C-alpha cells in the first residue's frame, strides 16, 4: 500500500472517530438524486457514458477522477446548467426526489432553486456584499427589507463569514479576498435555501487556510444540505466526504463509501488513481 493511501486511511479513521465521538448513528438515508443510464454528448464528444449513481440526502458525495473525465459535466447535469452549452444531448434519467429532471416538463428554474451551485472560481456579482446575498431572494420575489436583512445575516453566518464582513456589508464584494469571496458565494447559495449544493472544485483557486475553512464549512452544512463536491484533492475527498465516486473517461468506475474507496478499492484503476499513479 502506498504512502498516500496510508495517509488516506488515517484521515478516514480520524473522521470515523470524530463521528463516533459525536454519537452519529449510521442509518439508512433517503436518496436525493438517482441517476440511471445517463449518457451525454457535447455535439460529437461522448462525455458521460451510462452513468448509474444514487446519491443520498444529507451526505457529502465526492466526485474524483482525472481531468476531462466528466466530473463537471456530471454535476452540471444535476442542475441542468449543462444545457447552456449549445449542442448538448442527453439520454437516460436523473430523478430528483422521485421526479425525472431531464424531462422537459421539469422547469429548470424550479430545479435550480432547490439545487444550488458553487463554482470553481469565486463568481460574486460586481455589487455590494449585501446585494450579492439578496440577489437570490429578490429574484424569487422577496421584497421586504426586514426579511432580506435577516436572510443576509443568516446566510453569512451559515457560511462562517459574518464576523469578517458584518461591518462592510455595503462595500463591493470584489474587495474581499479569494477565500472570502468563495464563502460569500456559498452564502449567496444558502440564501435561496436549496436542498442540495453542488460544488465544482470550490477550493481549487484558494490557499490552504481558506481551503480548510471551506472544508469545515462543508462539514457543518452537511447537517442541513446534501452536498455533491468535485475535487482533485484526494485528501480533501477523504477528509470531508461520506461517499466517493471515481470517474474515468466519462464512466463511473467505482462508487461507494469513502472509507472503502480509499482504503480498499475494488478496481485497480481506482487504486492507481488515488495512489497518484495517473491523473
Amino acid at each position, binding site marked *: 500500500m502506498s504512502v498516500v493511501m496510508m495517509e488516506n486511511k488515517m484521515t478516514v479513521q480520524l473522521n470515523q472517530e470524530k463521528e463516533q465521538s459525536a454519537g452519529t448513528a449510521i442509518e439508512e438515508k433517503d436518496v436525493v438524486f438517482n441517476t440511471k443510464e445517463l449518457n451525454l454528448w457535447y455535439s460529437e464528444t461522448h462525455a458521460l457514458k451510462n452513468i448509474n449513481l444514487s446519491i443520498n440526502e444529507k451526505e457529502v458525495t465526492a466526485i474524483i477522477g482525472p481531468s476531462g473525465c466528466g466530473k463537471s459535466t456530471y454535476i452540471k447535469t444535476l442542475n441542468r446548467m449543462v444545457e447552456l452549452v449549445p449542442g448538448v444531448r442527453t439520454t437516460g434519467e436523473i430523478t430528483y426526489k422521485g421526479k425525472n429532471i431531464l424531462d422537459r416538463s421539469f422547469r429548470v428554474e424550479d430545479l435550480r432553486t432547490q439545487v444550488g451551485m458553487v463554482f470553481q472560481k469565486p463568481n460574486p456579482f460586481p455589487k455590494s456584499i449585501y446585494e450579492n446575498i439578496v440577489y437570490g431572494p429578490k429574484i424569487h420575489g422577496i421584497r421586504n427589507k426586514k426579511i432580506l436583512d435577516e436572510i443576509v445575516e443568516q446566510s453569512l453566518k451559515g457560511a462562517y463569514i459574518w464576523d469578517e464582513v458584518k461591518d462592510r456589508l455595503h462595500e463591493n464584494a*470584489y474587495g474581499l479576498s479569494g477565500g472570502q469571496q468563495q464563502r460569500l458565494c456559498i452564502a449567496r447559495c444558502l440564501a435561496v435555501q436549496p436542498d442540495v449544493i453542488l460544488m465544482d472544485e470550490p477550493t481549487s483557486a484558494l490557499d490552504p487556510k481558506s481551503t480548510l475553512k471551506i472544508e469545515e464549512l462543508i462539514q457543518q452544512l452537511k447537517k442541513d444540505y446534501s452536498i455533491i463536491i468535485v475535487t482533485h484533492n484526494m485528501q480533501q475527498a477523504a477528509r470531508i466526504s461520506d461517499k466517493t465516486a471515481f470517474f474515468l473517461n466519462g464512466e463511473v468506475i467505482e462508487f461507494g463509501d469513502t472509507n472503502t474507496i480509499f482504503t480498499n478499492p475494488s478496481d485497480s484503476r481506482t487504486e492507481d488513481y488515488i495512489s497518484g499513479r495517473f491523473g
Partner: protein
Amino acid sequence: MLSKLDQQQYTKRMNNRIRKNSVLQSVFFLSALFGLFVLAILIIRVVTQGFGWIDMDFLTGRLSTDPERAGIMGAILGTLWVMIVVIPVTMIVGVGTAIYLELYAKKGKFQASIQTNISNLAGVPSIVYGLLGLTVFVRLMDLGNVVLAGGLTLSLLVLPILIVAAQEAIRAVPSHLAEASYGMGATKWQTIQRVILPAALPSILTGSILSLSRAIGETAPLTVLGIPALLIPFPNGFFDTFTALPMQIYYWTLDSSLVAEYANLAAATIIVLLVLLFVLNSVAIFIRNKFQHRY
C-alpha cells in the same frame, strides 16, 4: 553569446535591428501626429473664421438672409428634436436586436443571415438611407419632410452600428456572472435585466453615443429627404418641418460664393455642432465611468 555568430556579425545585425526599430517608431509617431495635425488645422481654421460670429443673437436668433442678423436657433431645435426621435428608437430597437441575437436566438441559418445583413447594412452609404427614408417615410407613409421622417431615417442609418456595438458589449460580459444567476433559479429575462444589461451598459452607452454623434453630423440623407434651410418656423413637435445644424452648414457653405460672410456663419455653426458633440461625448464618458464595474 550565440555561439554560431562571430562578434562582428553579431554587432552588425544588432545595429540593424535597433535601427529598424527606431525607424518604425518614428513612422508610427508621425502617423499619430498626422491625425493631430489635421484636427488642429481644422479647428484653427474653423475657430478663426467663425468664433467671432458666435454670440447670443446668433445662437437664439431666427434664420435671415442678412448675415448680420442670421441665427441658428431653428437648426439647433431641429437637431434636438431629431435626437428625441433617434435616441429612443435606436436604443430600444438596437439593444433589443442585440439581446435577441446574442441571448435568445438559436445559433443557426436564420440567426446567421440576420447577422450578415446587419454587418452589410453598416457599410451601406448614408445617401442610400436617405433614399429609403424618402420613399418610405416621406412618400409612402406621407409624413412629408418632418422631424419624425428625418429622425426615423437617421435611426435606420445608425442602427446597424449600435446593434453591433451592443452585441459586442453583451458578449463581453463574463459568462460566470450569468451562470451565477441561472444557478439560483433566475429566468433568462431576470438574468438579462439584473446581471447582463447592467454589466454591458457602459459599453452600450459608449456605442450609442458614438452612433448618435454620427446621426447628428449626417447631411447626405437629409438633403435627399429635402430638408430645407429656409425661413421656417421653429419646430415644435414630431410633425413639424425642420432644419438641422449640418444642413445649415451645407447651405451656407454652398452660398458663400454669393455672400462671403456665409462662410463665417458656416464656421460658427460648425463650432456649435462640435461643442454639441463634445458635450454628448463627455456625458457618455461620465456615465460610463460612473457605471463601470470591475469583474
